[in-house]
């Protein structure tokens, strides 16, 4: 029964192989249902496993299944082995369930695409790698999954490879995440060299036993792992790849660049939390980076005019919230926000995909408008998602998850008023840019006419996700309103609970403030973008807006200090200075060839003469001896 968890990543992998090896013989319909069905099966299995697991709690907190021995050399020992605990269960659930809905949607969304089979093959490979990442028992297998999702992200961003800029975006994503990944593998090697094992549990036990809190090696290792997480999760300073990654199809953005892969960094930090608790400085860095990222990305989202780029910056910003929560030690709040974010952000991306598809590849929100009447299902689901994203009080799930983070950012042992302030400003920005999207896209007068009607395959996943982004919040209610701790109860089986410092319990006050902030953000959006678009027009041409639009010019800075010098060096190296020596040897040989080939003149009698002379010479020398 337990070994069933090995099937969860195996099923999507199997369907990937089927699609790659025999896909040419399958009809489009079968291809789609294999692609979606395998993930649906994985999702069902996850639920069965999950129910069994929760029933066995609290007696059984985690279990491991070894599938086979992967490599064994000396003391280097790694198995293909999966382990299930509440953290990986939640990730598995989100990956398979949201993944399944997105695959169903893709059957409709990609119906006309020529790369239909390729799309489903890549998506299945992605889901399989992501499941390996979260289920891996040892850190090496986890790294395999980590690189697997990076590869699939690359392949899917550049899915429409005929446009050169899509290929550029894919390479950018790959290279920037690679910077983090390199740091991460160094961190993994440091861990292995010190503790002679790859098993995550053993590593964490040994680290807490052998390394002192705040010791240099602990800080360095934690920092290296954090770098990997920053690259994957698009946090400052490695966030620039995510907005460009929107070049991929919308289901890809929904699954990989919103719901699952970009939260792998959150998973990594949560999984190795013991190591991070040994390095309080790095913890503080995580919280600071999270706070900065959510502000930078929030402001950037305000300046975008491409619907998907707004959502991309919003994703960066929301993951910033998760990092903030991780930094202050509120693991369950981070994981809770991860889950709720997966629901509403997948919903928003899918709905945006429908809008873009229906409007014939129109990405610019200023060319949209008035879509409320024309596509009511998309409007209402998009509204629900945005409300959840802006943490509309009481009714939406986003409120409960974000509120938990904001409260812990203040009240946690390592939190403080500054982090809370950053979070609350971010909350205002979130509400503002979410409803800016709503008002500009769905209200006002129509500027582009829809060219086709969205199908049921696309709208049903939207409705399911919309329901989840509302009711998903009720499994975890704060102490001030109802005290439901189903989710954190589950998470805290694996992760340490948050340490609250000795403050007065004024959570209700903080909730009131954040509720007011969210409402006022929506109100401002209503004033600026709906009632008085005149201000908006002036703002659109201001320099501040330009700063926001370019994402605070990070791309430009990196181009100047890193990319351009390297390109310059490459230009010099193009002349192959170091090859000159080798080339001269080759030229010498060629010259010899030219000279000697003169003797090959095709005159048989000339050959005979040289033959005779040669023999005469040889004989002369031999006789002289």
């Amino acid at each position: 029964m337990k070994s069933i968890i090995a099937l969860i990543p195996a099923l999507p992998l199997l369907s990937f192989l089927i699609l790659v090896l025999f896909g040419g013989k399958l009809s489009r319909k079968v291809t789609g249902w294999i692609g979606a069905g395998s993930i649906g099966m994985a999702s069902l299995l996850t639920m069965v496993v999950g129910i069994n697991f929760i029933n066995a709690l609290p007696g059984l907190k985690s279990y491991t299944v070894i599938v086979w021995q992967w490599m064994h050399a000396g003391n280097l020992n790694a198995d293909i082995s999966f382990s299930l605990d509440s953290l990986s269960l939640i990730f598995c659930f989100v990956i398979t369930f949201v993944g399944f809905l997105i695959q169903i949607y893709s059957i409709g969304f990609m119906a006309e695409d020529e790369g239909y089979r390729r799309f489903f093959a890549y998506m299945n490979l992605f889901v399989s790698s992501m499941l390996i990442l979260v289920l891996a028992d040892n850190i090496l297998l986890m790294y395999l999954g980590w690189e697997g999702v990076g590869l699939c992200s690359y392949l899917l961003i550049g899915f429409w490879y005929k446009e050169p800029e899509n290929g550029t975006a894919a390479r950018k994503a790959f290279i920037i995440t690679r910077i983090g990944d390199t740091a991460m593998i160094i961190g993994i090697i440091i861990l292995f060299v010190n503790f002679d094992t790859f098993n995550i549990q053993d590593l964490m036990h040994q680290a807490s036993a052998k390394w002192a809190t705040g010791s240099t090696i602990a800080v360095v290792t934690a920092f290296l792992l954090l770098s990997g997480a920053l690259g994957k999760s698009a946090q400052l300073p490695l966030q620039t790849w995510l907005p460009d990654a929107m070049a991929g199809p919308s289901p890809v953005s929904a699954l990989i660049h919103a719901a699952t892969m970009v939260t792998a960094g959150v998973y990594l930090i949560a999984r190795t939390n013991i190591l991070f608790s040994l390095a309080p400085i790095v913890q503080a860095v995580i919280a600071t980076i999270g706070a900065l990222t959510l502000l930078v990305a929030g402001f950037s989202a305000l300046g975008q005019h491409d619907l998907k780029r707004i959502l991309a910056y919003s994703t960066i910003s929301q993951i910033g919230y998760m990092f903030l929560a991780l930094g202050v030690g509120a693991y369950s709040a981070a994981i809770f926000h991860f889950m709720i974010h997966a629901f509403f952000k997948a919903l928003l991306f899918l709905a945006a995909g429908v809008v873009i598809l229906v409007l014939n590849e129109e990405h610019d929100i200023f060319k949209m408008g008035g879509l409320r009447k024309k596509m009511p299902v998309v409007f209402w689901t998009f509204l629900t998602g945005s409300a959840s994203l802006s943490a509309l009080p009481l009714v939406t799930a986003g409120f409960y998850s974000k509120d938990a983070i904001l409260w812990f950012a203040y009240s946690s042992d390592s939190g403080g008023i500054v982090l809370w302030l950053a979070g609350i400003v971010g909350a205002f920005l979130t509400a503002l840019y979410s409803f800016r999207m709503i008002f500009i896209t769905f209200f006002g007068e129509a500027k582009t006419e829809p060219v086709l009607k969205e199908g049921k395959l696309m709208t049903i996943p939207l409705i399911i996700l919309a329901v989840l982004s509302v009711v998903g919040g009720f499994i975890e209610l704060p102490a001030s309103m109802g005290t439901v701790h189903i989710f954190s109860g589950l998470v805290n089986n694996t992760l340490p609970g948050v340490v609250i410092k000795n403050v007065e319990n004024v959570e209700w006050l903080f909730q009131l403030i954040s509720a007011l902030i969210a409402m006022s953000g929506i109100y401002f959006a209503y004033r600026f973008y709906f009632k008085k678009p005149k201000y908006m027009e002036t703002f659109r041409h201001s320099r501040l807006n330009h700063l926001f639009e370019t994402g605070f010019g990070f791309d430009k800075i990196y181009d100047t200090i890193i990319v351009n010098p390297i390109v310059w060096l490459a230009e010099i190296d193009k002349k192959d200075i170091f090859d000159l020596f080798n080339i001269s040897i080759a030229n010498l040989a060629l010259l010899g060839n030219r000279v000697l080939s003169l003797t090959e003149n095709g005159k048989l009698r000339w050959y005979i003469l040289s033959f005779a002379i040669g023999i005469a010479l040889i004989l002369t020398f031999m006789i002289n001896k």
Partner: protein
Amino acid sequence: MLTVPIDTQILFAGILFFLGLIGLLVRRNLVFMLMAIEIMFNSAGLVFIIAARHWNQPDGQVMFIFILAVTAVEVAIGLALILQVYHHFKTLDVDAINNLKDDR
């Protein structure tokens, strides 16, 4: 019986060989070149005979029989090749037949 010194005999064979070689070098007609080669063969055979005579051993004579056989075979193949060459190129001028030459 008049005995010719061995040096003279060898010299005679050598002259014969060089006559053949010069014939090979100066003639351009393939038939004549084949004939020149025959002369060179025969001069080599002559040296065997001279050696056999000098040491009173039969081996040299035997060797000459071999050489004769080889020459006969060589002439057969050579003439066949010359026929084919003429058939193909409509000439026997060896300088004109240089299709395998490096073209540079």
